[in-house]
């Protein structure tokens, strides 16, 4: 069933100072797709994800969201997209709750769930009001991932979401991603671990991108 592609990457290439990271990346993603971006270190996984999140402009190529160029309709596209980068994106001297609160107003379309409940569900019970610099890397990653529970954005762009997460947490997170896909969402993630998600689509980034 070839639904209209919700998000499609059209021949995206990125060149930084005369060396070409990747080119000709074309993918059409429909509702319910989970795409894993794979490739050796330095193949440009993070760069591609940052391009999809519009934090970086591609040298050539277009990002089409529901038939329109995402960069031209940046406002609507960003409302529908959530991006978790390499860095946790948390202010270290603020607590997870405070961090979630300011983030929810910067990305206003999110559910009415209570921040405290969301953090508890992410396994941070008891750590909600502690400054982030006292938390472990895994806990900080969980505090950042709490945004997945509050957001209503259909498109999730996650850069190495599993780093520093324990085995039990990875299983929970995979369940969350599958649940989101079943509700009609799209997930694009990059990771080195093999992901235990059935019929996941893969994008191999070497020098020439090949969609498997």
């Amino acid at each position, binding site marked *: 069933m070839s639904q209209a592609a919700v998000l499609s990457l059209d021949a995206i290439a990125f060149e930084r100072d005369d060396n*070409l990271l990747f080119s000709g990346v074309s993918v059409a993603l429909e509702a319910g797709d989970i795409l894993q971006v794979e490739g050796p270190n330095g193949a440009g996984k993070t760069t591609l994800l940052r391009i999809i999140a519009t934090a970086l402009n591609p040298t050539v190529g277009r990002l089409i969201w529901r038939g329109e160029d995402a960069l031209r309709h940046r406002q609507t596209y960003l409302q529908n997209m959530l991006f978790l980068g390499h860095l946790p994106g948390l202010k270290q001297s603020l607590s997870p709750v405070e961090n979630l609160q300011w983030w929810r107003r910067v990305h206003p379309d999110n559910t009415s769930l209570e921040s405290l409940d969301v953090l508890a569900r992410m396994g941070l019970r008891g750590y909600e009001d502690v400054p982030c610099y006292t938390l472990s890397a895994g806990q900080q990653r969980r505090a950042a991932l709490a945004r997945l529970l509050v957001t209503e954005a259909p498109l999730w762009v996650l850069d190495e979401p599993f780093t520093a997460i324990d085995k039990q947490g990875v299983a929970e997170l995979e369940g969350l991603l599958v649940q989101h896909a079943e509700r009609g969402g799209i997930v694009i993630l990059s990771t080195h671990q093999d992901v235990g998600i059935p019929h996941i689509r893969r994008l191999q980034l070497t020098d020439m991108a090949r969609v498997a």
Partner: protein
Amino acid sequence: MWQWFHRLGSPRWFYQASGKWLPWLSGVAVLLLMIGIAWGLGFAPQDAKQGNSFRIIYIHVPASFLALAGYYVMALAGAVGLIWKMKLADMVMKSAAPIGAALTFIALVTGAVWGKPTWGTYWVWDARITSMLVLFFLYLGVIALQYSYSGQDAANKASAVLSLVGMVNIPIIYKSVDWWYTLHQPATIKLTEAPSMHPDMFHPLLVMILGFYCFYAVVLILNTRTEILYRERRTRWVQDMVGPAGESGQ
């Protein structure tokens, strides 16, 4: 060989087009400058008060004009590069910065040397010279920013933003310096008003200003062409140019 895809205003077209009429332009520039300098140094009358040291004006004023005009050329090239993502415009901006800084330096040096016989000291906080000094800092800021970014594209965008901000601020800076220097000497000529100088003095100055404009154009094109070669050194047309079949001319 990677075949790069280039946006509008392909540097290659500019390289070939400028190659054709660059010799003519440089000929005109050299001619104008020679006539102007000879005329200003040898044939123009000396100033009643300042005597012969007045002849420095024939370098100082044109250099100041071009230093300021050069900043606007740089800022506008930056804007075109920023808005339409034109590689050629970025290269023009990158080349215009050092040229503008050099011309500002000339204006400052000639102003200082001129100050010695007329005001007795090399550095006088005269309104125009102070504004020229600030313009020099503006240029240094753009050049320093250009070379502190590792990525070439980011460097161009950043210096384009800075030069635009600078351009918007130049009138404010000039007016505030004038206001600060309450008892300043009015600028000798304003193109709109009648020149307060004797025509025999004014004509060589006009020739020098024209000569400097041509000189600026020649030097800007020269630097931009070199920048194009540098940025396109791995493309086919540059390889062919250098390779056995290449013509080795200008």
